[in-house]
């Protein structure tokens, strides 16, 4: 398949760069690398970038730069990059599976006719890629989950999902960074603080980061929660 790289105008203040149109870790990694390259270049007039599954939105100030100049620069940077490795973090996320912290774990196991232990084993054995952050500040969409535990979303979303909840939404898994409504199947919760506006960047996870889940006990959960709350 041909690798796609196409710049289209998006209003008079943005360029949408479309990569190959699919949810794929290689495509998504290319998006994050390109986003990092653009940040490093510090091109005058570029305000910020929004990486997503297979695209990068680049916001600019039309007073300082115009569409064709940006596209010219982007095409040049694209041919130059590729071999560059960007620095993304690998983060271990402690998680308490099941019980009141993961009210849908039981459903996920039943849905696939496997045991709860099996679901935990599958979920905690993979390495995930932060495809993008959105929906709410800090909500991380993670790619790389085994299809063995892919589960449809709730038919009607919960009005409130606590911060730290880890859910499954179809083929993806994700972490709710702040309390919000939500329709994903909640299988556990992390005691880590995922969103704090006093920090810069304000989120623990960044697009392009790698994530692993580490099962913990309720006692460990409470100890870790206390650590940052005090």
């Amino acid at each position, binding site marked *: 398949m041909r690798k796609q790289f196409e710049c*289209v*105008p998006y209003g008079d203040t943005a360029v949408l760069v479309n990569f190959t149109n699919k949810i794929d870790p290689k495509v998504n990694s290319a998006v994050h690398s390109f986003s990092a390259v653009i940040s490093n270049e510090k091109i005058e007039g570029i305000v910020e970038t929004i990486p*997503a599954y297979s*695209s990068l939105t680049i*916001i600019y100030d039309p007073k300082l730069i115009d569409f064709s100049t940006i596209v010219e620069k982007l095409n040049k940077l694209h041919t130059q990059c590729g071999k560059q490795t960007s620095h993304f973090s690998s983060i271990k996320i402690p998680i308490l599976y099941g019980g009141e912290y993961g009210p849908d774990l039981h459903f996920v196991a039943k849905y696939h006719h496997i045991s709860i232990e099996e679901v935990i084993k599958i979920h905690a054995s993979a390495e995930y890629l932060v495809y993008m952050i959105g*929906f709410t*500040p800090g909500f991380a969409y993670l790619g790389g989950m085994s299809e063995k535990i892919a589960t449809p979303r709730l038919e009607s979303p919960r009005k409130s999902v606590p911060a730290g909840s880890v859910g499954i939404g179809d083929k993806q898994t994700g972490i709710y*960074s702040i309390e919000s409504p939500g329709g994903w199947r909640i299988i556990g919760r992390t005691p880590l603080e995922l969103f704090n506006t006093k920090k*810069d960047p304000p989120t623990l996870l960044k697009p392009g980061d790698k994530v692993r889940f580490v099962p913990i006990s309720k006692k460990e959960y409470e100890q870790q929660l206390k650590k940052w709350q005090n």
Partner: protein
Amino acid sequence: MAKLIVKSGGLFTTIQDLGRYGYQKYGIPPSGAMDGFALQVSNLLVGNKRNESALEITSAGFSAIFEGECEIAITGADLSATLNGKMMMPWQSFHIQDGDILKFEKIKSGFRAYLSVSGGFDIPKILGSKSTYVRAKIGGHYGRKLRNGDEIALKSKNLLVFHGTKIPSHMIPTYSNHVRVVLGPESDRFSKTEIEKFFSSTYRLTAQSDRMGYRLNGPTLRAKDGKHDILSNGMIIGAIQVPPDGNPIVMMSDHPTVGGYVKISTVISADIPSLAQLKPGDKLSFEHVTLGEARKAYLHMQKTLDLLETHIKKKPKVFFIKIGEKLYKVKVRAR
């Protein structure tokens, strides 16, 4: 220290500046004044930097009392503001004295007014901005809209400068309910007929329209093969999403940072202030312009702001200087 005490919070009043940029990759929308032009002008009128925080007052009903002296200006919507019961004209600055009462009585035109105070509001910046983002309780006054009894301190100034300025009437913007868009980024997902329908139709803002987005009602639009879903991509202010029900949604300041529906076109940045002044029930229609025309309109808006800034700086200023218990009034003109 001077402060503003809210007597009635009104429908939806928040503190906003020009927005929080650089954090959309972390899921944080830009927020900021919906009518960025009016915000900048109200700040210039009281001698503030263009990006200073001001109150964004939605609809009539807001009222406040001032403690101490300052200068204020109101721009944007004309919500029939009164000062101690006396009519106040928008787009000019006023000298406020201790105990003055400001009220926004009823909508005359527009929907969102901006109230700037000299020096700005004394609140902390969160991630580089004072803008309120209510959904995540970020910024502004404890991350929420203002309520009765709230007290907001103004940045104290030793020297009170009174600009007493109004802007030339030809520079007051004429807000329109016919806005310009550029095609993209997913216009090609609609047939020519559907695109033509979009440009020839009149839509209405539904009651589900707020700082996040405007939900429109009118002729529904169908994407090719009925496929309205796309892989989620970044969102910007002015982007017009069309979900499967065919009713367009225009993204506004508190928009989600990513979205998964096709976008038929995007409102140009120079016409966002016009959008900001629409209220639920108002009519709205769209016109197609080129990217070049959009950029020209944006540059024209920036030039108007530059001219205003020069105009205001040239005007003679009145300084109030307190020496001991006596207050002296000094008029100074730039040479």
